[in-house]
C-alpha cells in the first residue's frame, strides 16, 4: 500500500477518523464463533450511512469486522482477500487459517503504527478451523490477543457485565445471539454513535454465515415519557 504522498515525501498521517463504525461484539459458542455489529457509519456525530454491512467474509471459514475508520476497514478487507486469493496461484489447496489472518493483520497494524500512520481500527477476526474456534483482536497499535469473547469500542464498557452474566463459552448459538442482541440494546441506549439495526454473522463447521440485518427491540412507551410529553405540564 504505497501512496503518492509517501513517494513525494510529504507523508500524511491519520490523526483522526472521518467516517466511523461502532462497537463490535464477538463470542464463541458451542459450535463456532459469532460476531455482531450495528449497521451504522457515522460522519462525526451525524448518523449518515444507516445500512452498512460491516462484517466481511474473508475466506470460507473466516470473517472480519472492525470498529473505527470505515475506509480503513474497506482497505483491510481488500488486503486480507488478496492473501486468500494468492493461495490460488500455488495450486496446493492450502488456505490461511483464521489465526494466520489474525497474525498478518497484527503485523500490518504494528508496521503502520511504527510509522505513526495507523490503521484507525480495532479489528476482530473470527473463524472456525479444524474443529477449533478462533477469535482474535488486533487493535490500533498492533496488539494481538486471542480470546473467547471480544468487545470493541463502547461495548467494552457497557457490555462486559451482560456477557459475564448471561454467556458462557459452551452456550448454544441462539443463546449467544440473544446475549449480543441484549448488548446492542444497551449500547443503543447509552452510546451516542450506536444504531438499533444490527447484523449477526457466525462461523461453524459448515463455514461462514452472514445474516440479514435486524432491528433490536427497544421500548419507548414508558409512562414517564408519555407524561413528560403531556403539554399541560409546561403551561402555568
Amino acid at each position, binding site marked *: 500500500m504505497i501512496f503518492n504522498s509517501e513517494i513525494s515525501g510529504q507523508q500524511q498521517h491519520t490523526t483522526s477518523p472521518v467516517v466511523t463504525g461502532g462497537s463490535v461484539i464477538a463470542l464463541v459458542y458451542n459450535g463456532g464463533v459469532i460476531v455482531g455489529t450495528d449497521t451504522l457509519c457515522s460522519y462525526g456525530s451525524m448518523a449518515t450511512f444507516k445500512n452498512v454491512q460491516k462484517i466481511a467474509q474473508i475466506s470460507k471459514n473466516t470473517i472480519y469486522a472492525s470498529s473505527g475508520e470505515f475506509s480503513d476497514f474497506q482497505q483491510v478487507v481488500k488486503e486480507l482477500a488478496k492473501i486468500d486469493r494468492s493461495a490460488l496461484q*500455488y495450486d*496446493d*489447496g*492450502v488456505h*490461511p*487459517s483464521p*489465526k*494466520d489472518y489474525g*497474525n*498478518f493483520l497484527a*503485523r500490518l497494524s504494528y508496521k503502520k503504527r511504527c510509522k505513526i500512520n495507523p490503521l484507525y481500527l480495532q479489528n476482530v477476526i473470527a473463524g472456525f478451523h*479444524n474443529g477449533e474456534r478462533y477469535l482474535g483482536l488486533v487493535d490500533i497499535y498492533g496488539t494481538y490477543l486471542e480470546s473467547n469473547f471480544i468487545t470493541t469500542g463502547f461495548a467494552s464498557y457497557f457490555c462486559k457485565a451482560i456477557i459475564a452474566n448471561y454467556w458462557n463459552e459452551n452456550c448454544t448459538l441462539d443463546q449467544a445471539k440473544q446475549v449480543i442482541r441484549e448488548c446492542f440494546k444497551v449500547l443503543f441506549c447509552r452510546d451516542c454513535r450506536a444504531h438499533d439495526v444490527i447484523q449477526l454473522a457466525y462461523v461453524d463447521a459448515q463455514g461462514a454465515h452472514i445474516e440479514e440485518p435486524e432491528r433490536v427491540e427497544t421500548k419507548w412507551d414508558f409512562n414517564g415519557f408519555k407524561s413528560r410529553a403531556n403539554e399541560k405540564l409546561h403551561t402555568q
Partner: protein
Amino acid sequence: MLKHLYDTDCVTWSPQGKLFQVEYAMEAVKQGSICLGLKSNEYVVLCSLKRQPSELAGYQEKQFKIDDHMAIAIAGLTADARVLCKYMRTECLEYKYTYESHHPVGRLVFKVAEKSQHKTQSGAKRPYGVGLLVAGIDPNGVHLFETCPSGNYYEYKCQAIGSRSQAARTYFESWFHLFEKSTLEQLILHGLSALKKAIMEDEELNERNVEVGILGKNQKFIHLNAQELKDYIVKLETFNANTQIQQE
C-alpha cells in the same frame, strides 16, 4: 555429436529442443554422493552417504534443517545448496513472523523451483548445480519433493538422487508398496537397505559416513546420533525387507 555447437549458454536451444547447459547442470547432481528419502503416513526419513574429501578431513554434511517441519538432503554442488538452504530458511522465518504458522511445504518447493528456473533463462547466469530432496509436514500431509536444476519439481513416495542412485531406486520399486504403513524403525531400515545397495564393494556403512534424518507429524526434524546409527546399522544385517521384521 554437434552438442558443442549449442551448449555454450542457457539461451541457446539445440535442434532437438534441448537446453544443454541445463542438462549438464543435472549431471552435476548425478556426480554428488547418494541421498534418498522415503515416507509413510506419518514420517519422512532422509538417508545420505557422506563423502570425505581426504583422510584428514571431516565428512561433508548433506542434510539441513530448514524449519521444525521441513528439511532437505542435497546432491551436487554444496555451495549452490547452501544458497538455496539459506533462501528456504529465510522464507520459512518470514512466513512464521507474518502468520505464526509453518510455511506450507509444496509452496516453498514451488518458490525454489521458480528461483531455479530463473537461472535457466538468462545469458548471464548458470543453473544451480544441486538437486534437493525436500522432506516436510504440513496440513496437507507428509511430503517428499525433489527439485532439479532445470526448475522442475516432483512429489515422490520415495526417491534417490546422486551417484549410483539407480540401485537404490530399484530397491524402492520392489518395496515401496509397504512404506505407507511402515513404522518409523522399518522406514529407517528400508532407507539404509536402499543406501547399502548404492555403495561400492569396498565401502561399508558406518556411523561416520551415514546421515539419517527423521521428520514426523509429531516429531520435529532431528538427526540420528552416532549411537543410534550404529544400532540401526547392526539391525540392518537381519532386516527382511518383505516382512519388515528382524530375522535370525
